């Protein structure tokens, strides 16, 4: 994952949103440190992490905001998603209420956030299939209808965790036109060069 010297590094603000206890911090910990702990300290306000990811000959440096999930913290969220280049909305596949909450986050991001924000829907705790309450098909359909890409993840077993971030990085690098750089995505070196011009795709 280390950046090659001479690579272009792109900073991208990424925010994680979702109900309390869905595993937002665990996903970040898995991605950033490759670790998992059963009892992750509860997040207050938000926690910040950064991690670089190399995609082909380019590097994305994620500035990750992992937000608190409790309902009353909702009023702080705009500060964290403002200007985000990407958002991961997380729910817990064993908790139907958390999926409802995820949809509300998507709705809010669509209405208030940056229209160019790349959005991912992550159904976490995919290792606990026996307790599943949210069918994968339902989430997939919802994601397609709303222009998000969808993956079921497990911070515990690491399934699909790096893939979500990798996919976001890929789309960030592909999907932006030079004159249409979303706020929050800062190009460090020679900004106008090497911007691939193609329309952003939503699966």
């Amino acid at each position, binding site marked *: 994952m280390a950046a090659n010297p001479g690579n272009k590094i792109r*900073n991208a603000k990424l925010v994680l949103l979702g109900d*309390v*206890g869905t595993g937002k911090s665990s996903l970040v910990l898995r991605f950033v440190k490759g670790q998992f*702990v*059963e*009892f*992750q*300290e*509860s*997040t*207050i*306000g*938000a*926690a*910040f992490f*950064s991690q670089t990811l190399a995609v082909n000959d380019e590097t994305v*440096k994620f*500035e990750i*905001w992992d937000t*608190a999930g*409790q309902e*009353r*913290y*909702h*009023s*702080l969220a*705009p*500060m*964290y998603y403002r*200007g985000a280049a990407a958002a991961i909305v997380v729910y817990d596949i064993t908790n139907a209420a958390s999926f409802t909450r995820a949809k*509300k986050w998507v*709705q*809010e991001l669509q*209405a*208030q956030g940056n229209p160019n924000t790349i959005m991912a829907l992550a159904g976490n705790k995919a290792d606990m299939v026996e307790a599943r309450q949210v069918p994968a098909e339902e989430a997939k359909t919802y994601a397609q209808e709303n222009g998000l890409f969808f993956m079921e993840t497990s911070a515990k077993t690491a399934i699909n965790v790096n893939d979500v971030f990798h996919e976001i990085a890929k789309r960030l690098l592909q999907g932006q036109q030079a004159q249409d750089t979303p706020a929050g995505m800062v190009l460090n070196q020679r900004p106008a060069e090497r911007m691939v011009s193609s329309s952003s795709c939503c699966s």
Partner: protein
Amino acid sequence: MFGTQVRGVVEDDFNPRRRRTLWNTPAASMPTTTHTIRYSTPRKGHANAHQLLAKFEDLYGFMVEGNVDDVNVLNDVRERMREQGRVWWALEASKGANWYLQPRISSNGGSEGVISVTSLKLSVLTNTITLRRLIRKGVPPVLRPKVWLSVSGAAKKRSTVPETYYDELIRATEGKTTPATLQIDHDLPRTFPCHSWLNSEEGQASLRRVLVGYSFRDSEVGYCQGLNYVAALLLLVMKTEEDAFWMLAVLLENVLVNDCYTDNLSGCHVEQRVFKDLLAKKCPRIAAHLEAMGFDVSLVATEWFLCLFSKTLPSETTLRVWDVLFNEGAKVLFHVALAIFKMREDDLLRIQHIGDVIDILQTTAHHLYDPDELLTFAFDKIGSMTTNTITKERKKQETVVMAELDQRIRRLSSLKMDG
């Protein structure tokens, strides 16, 4: 450690029947493995020895990771705490036991314990000033329960209800499930899992009773994430659940501004706006630089204010902040937050990336093992801020925050109708 000098002061003050559970291992008298470790300065060529990280238990039993310098600083802090303890005992010898529990002039902004000017005696004034100076230099851990209960007004608050209040409150909560209890149960194992007692069944049961009890006392606050860390640290200091409970009550009801933890955290929004304003006044260069970068200081400061630094600073440093907080009121949080920025002014002004700003602030805060370094900045370098000025500023910001939150709620509810 202080245990040898205490003469059981903590023990004989309270009726033992009213004490539910004891946190039995007073950290201040708990010898830790690294206690006497002293590293010599590495010779040239071995400079990276400073970078060696070691896990050790800090003064209140938290497992932390730090380098050689941190361990040395902690040893110095322990020595200074012993000296400061001797100052307290000497004053007790000359002024009489419990002199600090006598009436004094409140600097807490609240009305409790305030003495009218006409009844003001010189001795009261002298004691108030002495105590204020003494508390800024630190309350010895064994005296903290007694001093905190007194200066914060918690003892007075408790004295207005029947002695059985806490026990009855806890009895009333038994077997009941509420949204607050569900969230509390979810958070118990996630509250300082690095602390062995808090991670134990006994510790979690204690913490649960304090938090659940409070959620029943004030249903508007109920339970807000963040209070788990505050209450946990209060338990470690106060030693009894009931005292921790009353400290939590006085904190939320008198010391801090209203509505920091209720519904949409409006009080917290207000404090953040006041903080930004103060940063612009007290550290204009930093404020201008960060604003030019598009960095909102609330991104880091929100957690500081909601957890009262308990997740940010090392334990003894946090408690030194709380010593002053309980005596002088919520403006202390501004002093400390400003100090963390101010301490690294030169570095912050050089930095161009948001991630680096956060790294600097977090690393600085996590390694502030020397409480005096922080408090000297907070009070000497930041300069005074009167409670009046801050109250006025809060009033102004309250209107703005309420309008903003209201607008947001309306926007979100219109979204729901569309969907």
